């Protein structure tokens, strides 16, 4: 198992290189000129040219990529061209916000989605099943930014129950952290909860019909053992898979929702970096997110062996 994990991590290296290269080249297609931004509005063309040379932007794209990649190999993600701060530092300051938000959204997705899927899947065709189907369709159809707007209007502005903007680190005040998380967490988690509920429903509906579940009943096991142990563990692989896919969806939704709730996370950083064509920052964010996604996928693959013992023999 450990060997498998190491092999998987090694194959992640070329993948990261490819992602880094792809993102780097895409950045060159974005219109705009970072040198002009830095030089200021009233700068002469000569001044802009000088800044460009200083930043090494006059080299070919490949040379620039090589320079950046060389730094990364030494653990240096470079310095933001705009803010003149180390990219690692900027990401470090903001990662906590985004990780909090995505984790909270995932928590909502799992805590709502799995029970809803269970209720629907255990009795397919019943009114509870139809209700869940309607709600999941709704949840998937509603975009996160729209839901965020509605939540802000209703709970922050009209009812004044929760803050409309801002972020409080959990280390500073856990209660205020929770308050600041609820609305954005709901906004990005709703679609994921719907997706998890759907997948759980079909996995559970398939599993309850299996012979071994009937055996559990024939042996007199209590419903909570039959469902909680035998049905859930055998439905685990599709549920964990869909939950892991939510991490990517939530990261995407977080970019927008962070802006709406004025949360200083990676989303804000990314949008401003892309606008300014701040290559080192964009690259840093892309790599960070890629690493998170790769790690999540690895954990999920390792969990498959727990759910299905047949996969343990290699």
């Amino acid at each position, binding site marked *: 198992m450990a060997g498998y994990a190491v092999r998987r991590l090694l194959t992640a290296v070329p993948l990261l290189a490819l992602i880094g290269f792809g993102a780097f080249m895409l950045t060159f297609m974005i219109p705009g000129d970072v040198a002009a931004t830095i030089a200021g509005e009233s700068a002469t063309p000569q001044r802009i040219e000088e800044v460009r040379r200083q930043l090494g932007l006059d080299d070919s794209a490949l040379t620039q990529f090589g320079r950046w990649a060389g730094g990364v190999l030494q653990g240096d993600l470079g310095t933001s061209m705009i803010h003149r701060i180390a990219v690692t530092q900027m990401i470090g300051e903001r990662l906590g916000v985004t990780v909090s938000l995505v984790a909270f959204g995932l928590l909502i997705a799992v805590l709502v989605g799995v029970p809803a899927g269970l209720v629907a899947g255990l009795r397919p065709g019943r009114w509870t099943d139809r209700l869940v189907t309607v709600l999941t369709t709704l949840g998937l159809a509603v975009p996160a930014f729209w839901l965020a707007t509605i939540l802000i209007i209703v709970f922050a502005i009209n009812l004044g129950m929760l803050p409309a903007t801002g972020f409080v680190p959990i280390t500073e005040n856990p209660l205020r952290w929770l308050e600041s998380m609820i609305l954005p967490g709901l906004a990005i988690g709703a679609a994921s909860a719907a997706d998890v509920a759907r997948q759980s429903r079909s996995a559970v509906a398939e599993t309850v019909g299996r012979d071994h579940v009937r055996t559990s009943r024939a042996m*007199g096991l209590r419903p909570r053992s039959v469902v909680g142990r035998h049905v859930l563990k055998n439905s685990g692989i599709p549920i964990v898979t869909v939950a892991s896919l939510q991490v990517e969806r939530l990261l995407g939704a977080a970019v927008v929702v962070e802006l709406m709730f004025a949360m200083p996370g990676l989303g804000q950083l990314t949008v401003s970096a892309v606008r300014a064509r701040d290559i080192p920052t964009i690259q840093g964010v892309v790599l960070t997110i890629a690493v998170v996604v790769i790690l999540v996928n690895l954990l999920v693959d390792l969990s498959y062996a727990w759910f299905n013992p047949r996969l343990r023999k290699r």
Partner: protein
Amino acid sequence: MPDPANTEPSNAPALTIEGLRISAATEHGRVDVVDDVHLTLRPGRITGLAGESGSGKTVTGLAVLRLLAEPTLRVESGRILLGDLDLARLPRGELRALRGRRVSMVFQEPMTSLDPAFTVGTLIGEVLRRHLGMDRRAARERAVELLDRVGIPEPEKRVDSFPFQLSGGMQQRVLIAMAVACGPDVLIADEPTTALDVTVQAQILRLLRSLTDDGMAVLLVTHDLGVLAEHCDDLVVMYAGQVVETGPVDDVLAAPAHPYTAGLLAAVPSTARRVERLATIPGTVPPPHLLPAGCRFVARCPHAAPVCEEPVTLEDAGGGRSRRCARAAELDLEGVGR
């Protein structure tokens, strides 16, 4: 129908089914798939429940533990008596406490009937912990003993195996170990050997026989007359959802009282005689929504007469036997010598 030769108190029925009727939702509406089923299981005896596919034997077996796929299948009337408890009417919670403890079941497909995600020790231990309140360690030790009891070699090693690491025969032994872990009074075995090799079949059936030594009653659902003749004490023959004949196996085989039983016996190829064509019963079982009002076998019966158009009841014939045939008294049906 008490057997006069055996009047010990321990020979009180382990389980009695009286007038069981089960309906199914079909495209033709709700129709009865099991009707007026009576049978008695006795301690220490194996009762064979025989019949063609669709005769209602598996549904009858499942109904005992109330494992029918509701609401498609539903018990309409009748009693299933375990002592003085009517399993058909017991509240769910009480029924669950009896399942696996006093009435248990093994199934046809061991490979799909064991949960693939747990070790066999966990699966057997779970039953012990549920009903006997054992802790994890005691349950594991007892699981090893049970694996040994059902003839699994190296039980201390096998207890940590997952079902997929065992052969079909071994899986069926594990399922049997789970089912008998709490020493039930009654075991329903639904075609337990159909999915297994012939040599393994005999081993499993001998295992079931040895388990009856402590007084467990077994209902062995099967369509295999060879299995019945070899391994059962009593026989119940079902046709189109009804019991048509019951009695001690040897007596019924030697002199069947119902033309359907006789037809089944005639259809078994014998090595004693050379035949041009294997005998069959002409026609097929009528579907549940097209059953005649009288004898359900009438259309296929070589002895059919006008009297057979009237409804027939299951009638005690003495000697622990009963049959559902209006002409039983006048017919002299051929059995098989043993």
